[in-house]
């Protein structure tokens, strides 16, 4: 009896871990894509849901990358070449793993830092915390129907705040991109200024030396 209860408890804890894993609906990642390489990420989507993918190249020489999305059957749904950012909203008509690929093979030397965000929405309205926390604590039964309204408005606020957070992430990526670009510029300005100076001075010395050499040889030839 105790063994059965213990076993059930073990399985329940496994499910709890998996359930906590399954709740994720939005993912964002920033990663380094080496020169001449391609990276693919897979995301499972439900039928009749929407998949929104937003990406930006935030560092790298050309600041662009090839982007493509493949359906679970392998059909190419979206294909973009050498874009620095993009937003795509897809209707996931079939259940399966959608493949999101970033390709940097056109670039031989520069590695790119790419930020992307995937927002999933299922057709059945986001249950949100509703089902997760049902039965957590004693509901106030007397005010129950008014409670529903409060609950709905809290839910709506929660969704809006999530959306603002996502917008913030997007803006942060834009800022990171501008910052990286500027820092590259600073380095480039310093480097090429030094190089220019060195070249100028070398040219001046070479010119003077060459002219002197010319006259020295002629002197020798004449005498």
């Amino acid at each position: 009896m105790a063994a059965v209860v213990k076993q059930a408890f073990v399985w329940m804890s496994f499910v709890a871990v998996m359930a906590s894993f399954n709740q994720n609906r939005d993912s964002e990642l920033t990663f380094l894509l080496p020169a001449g390489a391609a990276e693919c990420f897979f995301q499972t989507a439900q039928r009749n849901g929407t998949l929104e993918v937003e990406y930006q190249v935030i560092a790298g020489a050309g600041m662009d990358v090839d982007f493509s999305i493949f359906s679970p059957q392998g059909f190419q749904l979206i294909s973009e070449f050498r874009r620095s950012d993009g937003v795509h909203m897809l209707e996931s008509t079939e259940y399966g793993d959608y493949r999101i690929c970033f390709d940097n093979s056109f670039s031989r030397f520069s590695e790119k830092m790419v930020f992307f965000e995937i927002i999933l929405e299922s057709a059945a309205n986001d249950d949100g915390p509703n089902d997760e926390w049902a039965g957590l604590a004693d509901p106030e039964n007397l005010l129950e129907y008014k409670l529903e309204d409060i609950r709905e408005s809290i839910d709506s606020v929660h969704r809006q705040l999530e959306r603002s957070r996502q917008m913030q992430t997007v803006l942060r990526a834009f800022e990171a991109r501008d910052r990286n670009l500027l820092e590259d510029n600073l380095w480039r300005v310093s480097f090429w200024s030094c190089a220019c100076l060195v070249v100028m001075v070398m040219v001046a010395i070479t010119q003077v030396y060459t002219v002197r050499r010319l006259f020295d040889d002629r002197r020798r030839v004449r005498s």
Partner: protein
Amino acid sequence: MTVVASCVGVLLLFAWFTPSKALYFHIGETEKKCFIEEIPDETMVIGKYRTQLWDKQTGSFLPATPGLGMHVEIKDPDTKVILSRQYGSDGRFTFTSHTPGEHQICLHSNSTKMALFAGGKLRVHLDIQVGEHTNNYPEIAAKDKLTELQLRVRQLLDQVEQIQKEQNYQRYREERFRMTSESTNQRVLWWSIAQTVILIITAIWQMRHLKSFFEAKKLV
């Protein structure tokens, strides 16, 4: 009783095997994959991963053998290692940032036997949660004895706090950005002036030197 328990167990077993909704990718044997998280300070980050290995017999991905693990290395914005640990085939790592900036999370497998990867690649499901997404609300409810409504309001408060933190961090970033921008502007200006001055000095030197040279050689 045992029949019921075993039925429940079997059902739960299927729940275990249902595909997770998290993002996944393939990783080679010696390949190291790094992800960058730009976060404000005092922010908690929880990363969960799950690995699967390609099984040639069944022709599908099955949970990896217990011997196969992943090495997780996390560096802070000053490239100092704050976490470097080996985890099993399924793992969960946590860290809290003490300085704002870009933290780097790197994963690579610890497999040394090439035979294990005969199928090719390892599938890694990764889920990284930042800030208030790391809060375990049922636990908070139990600890502070909150009703459902109070818990929801608490969640809203946490969300707003995280947004505020991000905004403060953005303000600090924008200030540094502005300083770099002004410094670049200054440098461009000073370098241009310096280059013009050196060019003029070099030209004058050249002409004077050649003039004295020609005079010495009695050509002028």
